[in-house]
């Protein structure tokens, strides 16, 4: 069974349908890239996957032992976080809170889990530094480590390379690829950086209120949907 099965999904804001007829599935080990222009319904779809908004019609089913709250979500950085006093460790640890019985404080096991992900993303050296003092790329690594604390199986990345310079962008992509290939973590990525993102992905969902394409990357590159969108950027 697939990790996520989306069937005939329609999503609406205050009664206005913004995206419809969405069907796709995500299997264990996939690297799905969701692309589309601004306002095409990408963010809305992401919120629905996370359970942050109600579904208008259709269904999202989780399988293979995955539940909705076990998605490791990596959001875009917010304004509030720019001057937020929090050590990186505190941020990463907060990822462990969702899926547990109520303990007021972090258990030893949760602290170990956080340390493991801190090591995995190579951020040990600045784990006690303040989040606001880090560079954009370092902040993204911290948020990715937090996402990993919330999941064993699947991460959902919202524009992970926005605002990063080309070198750091490449680093970010290779970190994500490593998680996908070496650690078997399924990846769903929403991205504006279409050319770069498609290089990485195994599957593509191209959204423009309705899906224009869903399938393997190789097929997407041959499909009509990719032509206008990618222009001459890819081979």
């Amino acid at each position, binding site marked *: 069974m697939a990790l996520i099965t989306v069937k005939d999904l329609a999503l609406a804001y205050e009664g206005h349908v913004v995206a419809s007829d969405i069907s796709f599935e995500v299997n264990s080990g996939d690297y799905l890239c969701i692309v589309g222009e601004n306002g095409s319904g990408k963010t809305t779809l992401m919120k629905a996957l996370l359970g942050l908004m109600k579904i208008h019609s259709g269904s999202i089913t989780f399988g293979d032992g995955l539940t909705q709250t076990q998605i490791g979500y990596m959001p875009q950085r917010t304004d509030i976080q720019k001057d937020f006093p929090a050590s990186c460790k505190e*941020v990463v640890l907060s990822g462990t809170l969702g899926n547990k019985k109520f303990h007021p404080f972090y258990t030893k096991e949760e602290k170990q889990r956080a340390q493991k992900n801190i090591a995995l993303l190579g951020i040990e050296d600045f784990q006690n530094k303040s989040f606001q003092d880090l560079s954009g790329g370092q902040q993204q690594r911290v948020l990715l480590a937090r996402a990993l604390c919330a999941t064993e199986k699947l991460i959902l990345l919202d524009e992970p390379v926005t605002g990063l310079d080309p070198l750091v962008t490449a680093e970010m992509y290779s970190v994500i690829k490593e998680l996908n290939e070496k650690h078997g973590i399924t990846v769903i990525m929403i991205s504006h950086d279409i050319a770069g993102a498609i290089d990485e992905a195994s599957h593509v969902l191209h959204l423009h209120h309705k899906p224009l394409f869903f399938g393997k990357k190789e097929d997407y590159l041959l499909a009509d949907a990719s032509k206008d969108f990618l222009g001459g950027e890819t081979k």
Partner: protein
Amino acid sequence: MTLTEIFTDPLMTQIVLKALVVGFLVSLCSSLLGVSLVLKRFSMIGDGLSHFGFFAVAIATVTSIFDFTLKGKQFSLALEFEMLVVVIVAIILLRLKNSKTKGDAAIAIFSTAGIALGSIVYNATGNNTMDVCTSLFGSSNIFTISDSDLIFSLVLSISILVIFVLFYTRIFAVTFDSDFAAATGIPSNFYNTMIAILTAVTIVLGMKMMGAIMVSGLIIFPALSAMRVCKSFKSVVLVSAVFSVVCFFIGFFIACTLSFQTGPTVVTVDVAAFILFILISKIKTKIHGKKA
């Protein structure tokens, strides 16, 4: 009144001690909640709540409908009434945050309306300006509190402290990133409502001593000052708590000795300490160089 008078006259000592205990607990609660509120860009909520609280105080003071005598003993439910009103306002403000009237506008509406309505109530009943002044800026002579109000305040403020400690990790998660928290199954809305209600309760507890206009100072200054010098959430919370309590004690004794009003004196001490913290952070950056 001098300090020696306070400590030689047993009756006076008792009154001052009661006021100190309530002030201590309220300063502590407000500084803790303040960290989350300031970081969520919700600093003004204290003003909205307390200014509307002024209206509730006016009604209770003028009409005395909440004061009654039972078996020869005097009781007052004024504090309970004020709390109910302010908690309701807090819930409304939170609901309005996502509606057409945005957060800051909604707070401004309640803030101004509260002061206007409160003043009208005092005007209409020909109450003297002394009452108005006291409810706006706090008690001018020593603050007296009935035993039942004292117990009520103690129970509530200690509950707030316990709740804050128990939910500390989740309050951090929800403050730092509400969406992420919700996505991992933490009921963000529940915690946001909880913080708003606890804030409302704290405001009402502090309002009589500090005054409706001044009480929100207890919420913002400790957090803002601590954020100047601390880099982790835990240290901000701790420094904020110590800052709030120390400033309260200093302000309280200055007010006693010089017969100033408690609210403005404590807030002035807060402002002075805040400026001191800004200077410290400037010197710190000079020494350690620009931050990365």
